[in-house]
C-alpha cells in the first residue's frame, strides 16, 4: 500500500438554495483516524460522500486537496451502515467484487487471506443471508481491505450492530486499518472516543475540535479518560458549540 495522504476538505454546500454548511475546513490527517460527529442533518455524510466522489443532492463549492497532490479518485474505499454485500454472491465473490467490477484479475488467494484476517475463515462459500449481522459487517471490512486503498471512508459502519459486536468490530477495524487515512462519520461519542486520533464535532455553525486523551486508539471501553472524553462530546452534542 502506498503512503496514506492527508486530506484538506474546504468549502460550502447548499441544498435546494439553503446553506447546509458554510466555509468549513476539515483537516483529515494522513495515516490516522478522524471521527466526524454531529447531529443528524448537519451534513456529516455529505462531507464524506463529496470526498468519496459520490453523488450528493447538494451543490458543493470548494476543494479537496490531498497532501501528495494526487486526486483521490480510485484511492478511497467506502463502508456504510449497510454492509452492501450482494445477496446473490458468496462471501468470497463479494470480497472480490471490486476486481470483478473493474474487469481486473480476481485474486482469490488474497481474498481468502482477507476473509481469514477478519475472522471468517471457513465461511467463504456462504451467502450473506447465512451470516449474522456482525459477520456480514466483517465481510464488508474484508472487501474494504481487499481494495487496498490508502483512504478509507466509513459512514456509521458499526451503528446497526449490537453493543458487543460493535465493540469487537471497532477493535478489528482499528487494527486492520492502521496507517491508513480514515474518516469515520458517527453518531456515537463512545465510538469516537475509542477510535479517534482526532475527533471533530460538526455544527451548523462550523467545526469544533475535541481534545483527545493522550493514549493512542483503540482505547479501552472503561478507560477513565476515554469515558470523560465521551461525556464531553455528548455534552457538546446536546448543548451545542462550547
Amino acid at each position: 500500500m502506498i503512503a496514506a495522504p492527508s486530506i484538506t476538505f474546504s468549502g460550502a454546500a447548499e441544498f435546494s438554495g439553503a446553506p447546509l454548511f458554510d466555509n468549513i475546513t476539515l483537516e483529515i490527517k494522513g495515516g490516522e483516524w478522524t471521527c466526524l460527529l454531529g447531529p443528524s442533518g448537519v451534513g456529516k455524510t455529505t462531507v464524506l460522500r463529496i470526498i468519496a466522489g459520490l453523488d450528493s443532492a447538494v451543490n458543493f463549492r470548494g476543494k479537496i486537496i490531498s497532501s501528495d497532490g494526487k486526486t483521490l479518485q480510485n484511492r478511497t474505499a467506502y463502508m456504510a451502515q449497510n454492509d452492501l454485500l450482494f445477496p446473490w454472491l458468496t462471501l468470497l465473490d463479494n470480497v472480490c467484487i471490486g476486481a470483478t467490477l473493474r474487469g481486473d484479475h480476481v485474486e482469490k488467494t488474497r481474498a481468502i487471506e482477507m476473509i481469514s484476517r477478519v475472522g471468517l475463515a471457513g465461511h467463504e462459500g456462504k451467502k450473506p443471508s447465512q451470516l449474522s449481522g456482525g459477520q456480514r459487517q466483517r465481510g464488508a471490512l474484508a472487501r474494504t481491505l481487499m481494495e487496498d486503498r490508502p483512504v478509507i471512508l466509513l459512514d456509521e459502519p458499526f451503528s446497526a450492530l449490537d453493543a458487543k459486536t460493535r465493540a469487537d468490530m471497532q477493535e478489528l477495524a482499528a487494527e486492520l486499518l492502521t496507517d491508513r487515512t480514515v474518516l469515520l462519520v458517527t453518531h456515537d461519542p463512545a465510538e469516537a472516543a475509542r477510535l479517534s486520533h482526532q475527533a471533530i464535532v460538526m455544527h451548523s455553525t462550523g467545526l469544533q475540535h475535541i481534545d483527545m486523551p493522550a493514549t493512542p486508539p483503540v482505547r479501552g471501553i472503561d478507560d477513565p479518560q476515554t469515558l470523560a472524553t465521551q461525556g464531553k462530546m455528548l455534552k457538546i452534542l446536546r448543548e451545542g458549540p462550547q
Partner: protein
Amino acid sequence: MNWKHGIISAIVLIAVWQLTVTLTGVASFILPSPLRVANALWHSRALIAEHAWVTLAEVILGLIIGSILGIVTAINLATSSTARAILRPILVFSQAIPVFALAPLLTLWFGYGMGSKIIMAVMIIYFPVASAFFDGLMKTPSGYLDLAQTMAATQSRELWHIRMRAAMPSLGSGLRLAAVYAPIGAVIGEWVGASKGLGYLMLLANGRVKTDLLFATLIVLAVLTVCLHLCVDILARRLAKDH
C-alpha cells in the same frame, strides 16, 4: 397455491356445474354436463392434442421472442437517456392501441399460419416484460451503486453484475404476467384467422354446435396456461433466489 386447495376447488366447481345442469335441465348444446365434456375430451383427444401442439408452439415461441425483446428494450431504456426520451412515449402510445384490434391486420400481413399468432403473443407480452424489468433496473439500491462507483466499476460490468442481478425479481414478475397473457394473444390470433390451434378448434366446435368439444378444448387451453404459469413461476423463483 397449495395443490390440495386446487383439487378441492376443482371438485367444488364440477359439482356446482353438474348440479346446475341437473336442476335446470338445460339443453346440452347450451351447457353440456361435465361428464359429456369428459367424454368429448376423451374421444377427441387426438384432434385436441394436434391443435394444442400448434397453440403451445405459438405461445412458447411468442413468450421467448417477446421476453427477449422486452429485456433488450428495458436494458436500452435503463442505460440510455436518449433511448428513454425517444422510446418511452412510443411505448406508452403503443399501449393505447388494443393489441386485439390489430389481430385482423396481422393476419392480413402475416397470413393464416403460426407467424401472425406468434406476433400477437409477442406484442401482448412485450410491454409487461419490458416495463417490469425496466422498473427493476431503475430501482437498484443506491448503496450498491455507491459501492460500485468507489470501486471504479465500468458501466457495463455494473449493469451486468449489479443492476441486472438486482432487477431479477422484477423480471420474474414480468415473466409471470407474460405466461398468462401469451396464450390469450395466440388464441385471439387464431380466432381471427387460422387453420390450426385451440382457438380455431373452439370456433369450429362452436359453429357446429359441438358445445361439449368447445368446453373440452377450453379446459385443455386452461390447463396449458396453468402449466405454463407454473413453469415460469419456477423460473421466476430461481431468478429471485437470494434477493
